[in-house]
């Protein structure tokens, strides 16, 4: 089957049992995406598919034929880190780093959701206007990404700073 990974066309022959996560890590030499719980509870495996964040551990690779997948390896451009990657460094948004690729991919998808007006559980009204990313909004919207080191303060700071200008 054919799909696009980090902007490059890829053609693979894959057993239906293989998750998108295992395809990335074991077959395509892209170990940046992490396997934490492998059951949809931790968010470490978050990738972007056509710009939307999903859990690659719960997706069968065959379901993503023809789609465009972005992993943490595909975020830097021309040798420069994505601005959110730099913000994670600036704000010390990690300790062991294992959840970081999932946190970063998830946050990029999350910011796009807020920009287009998707409310969250803590959004006061449902009018569909772009939602400013307060600390409370970021914590709710990022609740599917666990950090067992507890680096949440740095993570939230990195995300809110990076996307603060996107929605005013």
């Amino acid at each position: 089957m054919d799909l696009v990974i980090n902007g490059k066309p890829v053609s693979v022959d894959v057993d239906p049992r293989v998750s998108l996560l295992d395809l990335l890590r074991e077959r395509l030499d892209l170990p940046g995406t992490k396997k934490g719980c492998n059951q949809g509870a931790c968010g470490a495996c978050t990738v972007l598919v056509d710009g939307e964040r999903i859990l690659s551990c719960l997706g069968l690779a065959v379901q993503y034929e023809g789609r465009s997948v972005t992993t943490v390896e595909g975020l830097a451009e021309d040798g420069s880190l994505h601005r959110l990657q730099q913000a994670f460094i600036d704000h010390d948004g990690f300790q062991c780093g294992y959840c970081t690729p999932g946190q970063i991919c998830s946050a990029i998808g999350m910011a796009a959701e807020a920009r287009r007006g998707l409310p969250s559980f803590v959004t006061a009204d449902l009018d569909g206007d772009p939602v400013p990313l307060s600390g409370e909004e970021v914590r709710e919207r990022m609740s599917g990404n666990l950090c067992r080191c507890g680096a949440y303060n740095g993570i939230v700071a990195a995300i809110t700073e990076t996307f603060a200008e996107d929605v005013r």
Partner: protein
Amino acid sequence: MIPFAYQRAGSVAEAIAVAARPQSKYLGGGTNLVDLMRETIEAPAHLVDVTGLSTAIEDTDNGGLMVGAGVRNTALAEHPAVRSRFPLLSRAILAGASGQIRNMATVGGNLLQRTRCAYFYDDAARCNKRAPGAGCDAVGGFNRIHAILGASPACVATHPSDMCVALAALDVTVHLDGPDGGRTVPFGDFHLLPGDSPDVETVLRPGELITAVEIAAQPLAARSTYRKVRDRASYAFALVSVAAAIEVDGGTVRDVRIALGGVAHKPWRAHAAEAALIGQPARSDSFRHAAEAELAAAAPLSGNGFKVELAARAITAVLDDLVEERA
């Protein structure tokens, strides 16, 4: 995971024909089914991917909405008609799972996720869902999160969906298609209480496919909300949740809809509470009385007695918020 064949269906007719093979299952977003396959709780020989079918949300002739079974949870929560006409549904969906899972999960799949508890996943435990007749280790075990209404000695698990609690409070019809043709089922009849056969969770017949969920027009629902009480602020199943809509005229309750999550094997429509409220003053004491009328039938287990009072307070608080326009 045992080997299986995968096929993406191009049409409902094709999906039903392909799924006529033994041990076939339809695949939506996979957020529950893939996990259960990995745990070998589900072991289909054929997976028929139906995520590309019926992905539209359309207005119906009578002012309702027809929601395709392949619509992702995020898309339903985000739809302008849902946000404005059925806010309890948007709120309920946004209270469920995580952003990533809501982007994957489909409406049809949300209805068909398994009613489950930790013992269901534990193959060292007895579970009548995994092995009918084996017994239930939750009844005498750690049952803090389990059911207080409609349970049986065979199963005390609760339905995990938030979206379905909102649907239970509305006038909703499930559209099915299958080897013997199409039919519709009222949402309240779709899921089953455990009885003696908790392994059977819905009225779906072999090979039947959910094609759409139809939400009837309901002006009452414009004033509605969803509250979820859980052990942590986000990304946890409900201890108790309440979906409610109310219409008040001159201080009197003209119409009201209440459904509960986290308390039963299926999304629990609170008919007794609704009946107790119609025609009553729209005040806290009426709401509390109605909640108690519903919970009179509660049969808590050793570890979940707190849910009875929690549910009573949650119902009262949600109705208070609605009539005082805080929600």
